[in-house]
């Protein structure tokens, strides 16, 4: 049975197509302002890449913030359940999933059968999300993709104490004017995101093995900072960013 998962996030739209428990392909594009168009586009592009007609896919589940605006999906489910399912599919002993995306971060506790037992989301604040990192990258005039590698070169992470994105940004600017090295500041920013996410995950008693998903999982600096906090290795695999779409495709097979 062929199924698809479409995950529409605030910044990127993701699609995954699966067949009998194997991932056939995935795709990520920018969401833009029209969710419906983005969902169609990411899906069509993936179908074209796989050289597959739409009729070859039997069931589709949509997820993410735009989940209710995907007209061709058979069902919408939240990214919480999809990320839990996706992580369990990729590695079935995972007990905690930490998903940090563009506008929110969340943690889920998953049981042995991949069911979400508890979850927690960031409050209405950009701290501890991808947006926070974006704002900081702009202030530092560094490409966000280089953030991870740069922070690994830090001698001493700076301390960013503000939780508020706006305040943290001015803290960063004053660190720059004090002549603090970019690497140290970036490492400090990653620590700040990691502290927020760690504190949040503690509320639901996160336990190892932990997997990190979402776009921010591509940032090795945040992953390392989180590993330090949790004092354990964190699994990040090649599907981190499309994990939600994969989870949706797995669930679609049960429809």
């Amino acid at each position, binding site marked *: 049975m062929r199924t698809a998962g479409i995950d529409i996030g605030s910044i990127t739209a993701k699609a995954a197509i699966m067949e009998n428990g194997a991932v056939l392909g995935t795709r990520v594009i920018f969401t833009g302002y029209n969710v419906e168009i983005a969902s169609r586009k990411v899906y069509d592009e993936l179908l074209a890449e796989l050289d597959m007609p739409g009729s070859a896919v039997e069931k589709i589940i949509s997820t993410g*913030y735009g989940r209710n605006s995907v007209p061709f999906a058979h069902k919408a*489910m*939240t*990214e*919480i*359940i999809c990320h839990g399912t996706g992580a369990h599919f990729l590695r079935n002993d995972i007990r905690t999933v930490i998903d940090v995306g563009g506008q*929110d971060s969340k943690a889920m506790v998953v049981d042995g059968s991949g*069911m*979400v*037992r*508890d*979850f927690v*989301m960031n*409050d*209405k604040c950009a701290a501890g999300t991808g947006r926070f990192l974006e704002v900081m990258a702009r202030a530092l005039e560094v490409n966000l993709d280089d953030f991870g590698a740069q922070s690994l070169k830090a001698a001493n992470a700076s301390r960013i104490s503000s939780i508020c994105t706006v305040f943290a940004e001015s803290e960063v600017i004053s660190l720059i004017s004090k002549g603090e090295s970019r690497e140290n500041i970036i490492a400090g920013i990653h620590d700040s995101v990691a502290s927020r996410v760690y504190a949040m995950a503690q*509320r639901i008693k996160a336990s190892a093995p932990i997997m990190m998903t979402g776009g921010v999982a591509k940032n090795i600096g945040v992953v390392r900072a989180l590993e330090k906090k949790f004092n354990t290795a964190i699994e990040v695999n090649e599907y981190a960013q499309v994990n939600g779409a994969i989870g949706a495709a797995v669930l679609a097979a049960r429809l």
Partner: protein
Amino acid sequence: MSTPEKDKTRKFRAAKRMREIMTEYYIDAKSAVQTGRKVAWITSGGPVEPLIVMDVIPVYPENYGAMIGASHMGGDLCSKAEALGYSTDLCSYARADIACAIENGGPIGGLPRPDMLICCNNICGTVLKWYEIHARYFNVPLFIFDTPFCHTEFPEIARRYVRSQLDEYVSFLEGVCGRPFDLEKSREVGALSLQGQRLWQAVLDTAAHRPAPMTAFDAFFFLALIVTLRGTKTVVDFYQELLAEMNERIDRGIWAIPNERYRLLWDNLPVWYRLKWLSETFEAHDACLVADTYTTAWCGSMKYIDENNFFDSMAEAYTRIYLNIGIDEMVKTIYTMIDKYEVDGMVMHSNRSCKPYSFGQYDIQKMIQEHKGIPCMVIESHMTDERSFSESQTATRIDAFMEMIKQKKG
């Protein structure tokens, strides 16, 4: 999808009567100057019975706050208060109400001017400053009824302290009204108040039936009378009628949610400007909010009332209300409700306005999960300030929470 015919039967007959009573009440209050009666503004948890005895019309800025929230005027009024210098962290009832008083605006053309202010701090500390502001602004006498916090018990020293204030309260009223306090009438009012509370509890209890004939959203609506007119015959008559209607619904099989599958408990004040959206969102998951800690608060300390001595026992009943007790006590109330209404999960509104209600929710959540094993979710907002509500974030949390419960329960 429910047909229009079904929707008609699901509407409560009593809702019309309730609106009439509230309209009459506000007309009375607004024409008090002409009829020569006095108006007292009083906090929602304050001892209102002595006012009824003295024929003073009690007016509740907090009930008004709910009205402001439900009519989507909260955000605007709050920003007016902020322009006057009040912090965005202040309770949104206080912000909206202060703005209304000063700007002379708000629903129903503003509240009638008070002749006196009665402030009881059994709900929070915010009300002290809030009422002091009004006392200065309107230049009217303010009576502060101080109820010490009761972590677990009510010590003798607290009893004496609070009881002595009841005498001061009576002398204060006699002074402002220029009339003696009628003890005989006080007994009558006390009996009516207790009867009203019992009936309110009985109405709420009908939701223990599976499926439930009413939801917490209905309770939020029907609550207004036990808050505002406690101690009057109107309340007793009304809740008798409402109770009969609930029982009739149970007999006829009219349920609040047509396909009730999941039963939930709500904690904290409602999100006044999102009642409809929230109720529809939960209903779409076949989930019924069968009970809540908020509306229960107006009958929750009945157990401390001595039927034969309402006046004296009021001291304890008004001190040990839900917001004036420690977390261990609160959680006991919640456990009882979880069992009584057989709920599958708890929805907590982390209400940035109301600190005493929201502080400790995460601890309570942990305790519930450990002792009762039911999942809890948190919604963040302010009860009247619609600027602080994120629909998509809230929708995701509710949907995920319901998906989780469905996975668990099937």
